[in-house]
């Protein structure tokens, strides 16, 4: 697949504060790509640079190989769904959706059929003549999406579009967006700080922090094989444990040697180990790899969440089987569930550029 968008050595600072530092990003045609990170990580700035609302201090934006860095937003073949919907309050639903088409001089019949098509697509049939101010947040969001997609953009930019919706509606809209993307066959670039949203919808997740890309990959890849402690803690719960790589495929965690599958970290080298709480298996004392005692227990609905003191580390464990507080247990981790990461040389290096 060809790259539809490329950011090449893009840097941007506001008031001497570096927001993006030498960012490189390639976006393949017809993918759902999510820029994920905490607030202030540069994800929204990245989206605004792609949309043309912010000009980078240096670097280039390429659209289908063509340099569009200095092209204003009204000349770009992209459309944006804004965080706060940004529907025109003085126009009704139909006029909002028609706005872009009217500007490009489409015929009345074409515009009308497009409005109907878009309203159907976002499940808002029959709302054409309603005032946008009378719509609920979720409905406004759908109209904002309809207004963007009728222009048949090759790339749709979405800036935390579900941020203001409640949980149930947000989950419904996530499925709607996936369906829309598949029906339209265009590229979605989606900005969010919600890791669950990112994992649910994306083909590719780009985890950002402090203006750098921390890791880029499929949701499974990001979740199962985080490349550094930031990614591991930001995406889901995890146990991150100071450990020593004895040699290839063997790591000493909490004084016990665990077989693992990673290689190439050297011999007797300090590393960080990531183990997801659902990958820790509790067994009867003596039957696992490391004995400990349950210290906390919380019921979470789908599973129980327990903390187990073992080997001087408080392990976070998720299991559908309850183990009461004070019970002695034994921990076991399958080799392929142990993820080894190099230790950062310094605090700053948590934000290194990761080549993908």
């Amino acid at each position, binding site marked *: 697949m060809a790259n539809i968008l490329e950011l090449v050595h893009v840097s941007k600072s506001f008031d001497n504060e570096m927001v993006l530092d030498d960012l490189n990003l390639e976006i393949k045609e017809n993918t759902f790509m999510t820029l994920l990170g905490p607030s202030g990580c540069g994800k929204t700035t990245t989206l605004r640079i792609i949309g043309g609302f912010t000009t980078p201090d240096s670097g280039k934006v390429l659209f289908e190989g063509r340099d569009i860095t200095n092209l204003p937003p*009204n000349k770009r073949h992209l*459309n*944006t769904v804004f965080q706060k919907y*940004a529907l*025109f309050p*003085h126009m009704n639903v139909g006029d909002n959706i028609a*706005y872009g088409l009217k*500007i*490009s001089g489409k015929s009345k019949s074409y515009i009308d059929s497009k409005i109907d098509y878009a309203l159907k697509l976002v499940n808002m049939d029959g709302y054409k003549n309603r005032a946008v101010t009378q719509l609920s947040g979720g409905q406004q969001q759908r109209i904002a999406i309809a207004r963007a997609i009728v222009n048949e953009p090759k790339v749709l930019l979405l800036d935390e579009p579900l941020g203001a919706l409640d949980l149930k509606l947000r989950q419904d809209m996530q499925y709607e967006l996936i369906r829309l993307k598949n029906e339209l066959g265009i590229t979605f670039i989606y900005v969010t700080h919600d890791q669950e949203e990112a994992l649910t919808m994306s083909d590719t997740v780009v985890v950002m922090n402090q203006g750098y890309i921390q890791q880029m990959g499929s949701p499974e890849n990001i979740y199962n094989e985080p490349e550094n402690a930031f990614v591991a803690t930001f995406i889901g719960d995890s146990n991150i444990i100071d450990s020593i790589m004895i040699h290839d495929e063997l790591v000493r965690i909490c004084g016990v040697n665990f077989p693992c599958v990673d290689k190439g970290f050297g011999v007797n080298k300090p590393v960080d180990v990531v183990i997801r709480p659902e990958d820790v298996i509790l067994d009867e004392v003596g039957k696992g790899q490391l004995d400990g005692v349950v210290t906390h227990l919380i019921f979470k609905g789908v599973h129980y969440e327990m903390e187990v003191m073992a080997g001087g580390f408080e392990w976070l464990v998720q299991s559908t089987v309850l183990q009461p507080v004070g019970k002695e247990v034994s921990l076991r981790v399958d080799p392929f569930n142990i993820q080894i990461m190099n230790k950062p040389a310094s605090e700053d290096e948590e934000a290194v550029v990761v080549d993908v």
Partner: protein
Amino acid sequence: MSKNKLLSGPYLLFILCGTVIPLLAILYYALVDKNGSFTLRNIASVAEPVHLKALGLSLLLAFICTVICLLLAFPLGLLLRKSGGKNKGFVIFMLILPMWMNFLLRTIAWKVLLQKTGVINSILAALGISNGINIINTPYAVVLGMVYDFLPFMILPIYNVMIKIDNSLVEAAYDLGASSFKVMKDVLLPLSMPGIISGITMTFVPAMTTFAISQILGGGNIYLIGNIIELEFLHGGSRNVGSGLSMVMMVFILISMALLNKFDKNGEGTVI
């Protein structure tokens, strides 16, 4: 509830003495003759050529003044919105600064500036321009005075509405392909409407009813409806005729406001 009524007491008393009673008095005088018997002649006197001419001139000058104020204020609002920096407060401050001085004083200052041998002409003469500007005692000077006095009342409501327009609406319009002009016409102008309506109200009404500006800068040659009413009340005319004309003028203003409010669908920001 009764506590609230108590709190509103002073204001209600003020309204009663300052608005309701005087209005009723004007209405009474407008509908009776010198001897106190009912007549419509006071109101009908608006049809006298002198009065019609004054009313027409008042409408015309107030209209011109309002248009000029609007043409100055709207682009300034756009500019202030766009600049968005630290200068904003300073520009607004400079606009409001003259308002801290009594407007009669400011109007008289214009008279001094504009006189045939006044400051402006002296400077022009010193620069070798002998003809100078001769607009004192003409409607031009009156309009200039009106614009100078009432411009802040146009700028402030427009500015207040404009800076509150969410910038993402402007970005959304650009995003959908609109040019700068289209963004202005389709988004900023309609959304500024409440402020514009409010500004027009606050400019047109005082300009329509002024008599001081026309007296000072018109040199006794320009008779607006306000001047006629003043003459009738204070300078040997009939207060009945004055009251009759006042009622007519009020009706004119109410009609203008009603027409304006029709444009302002949301009803935000209007004064009346």
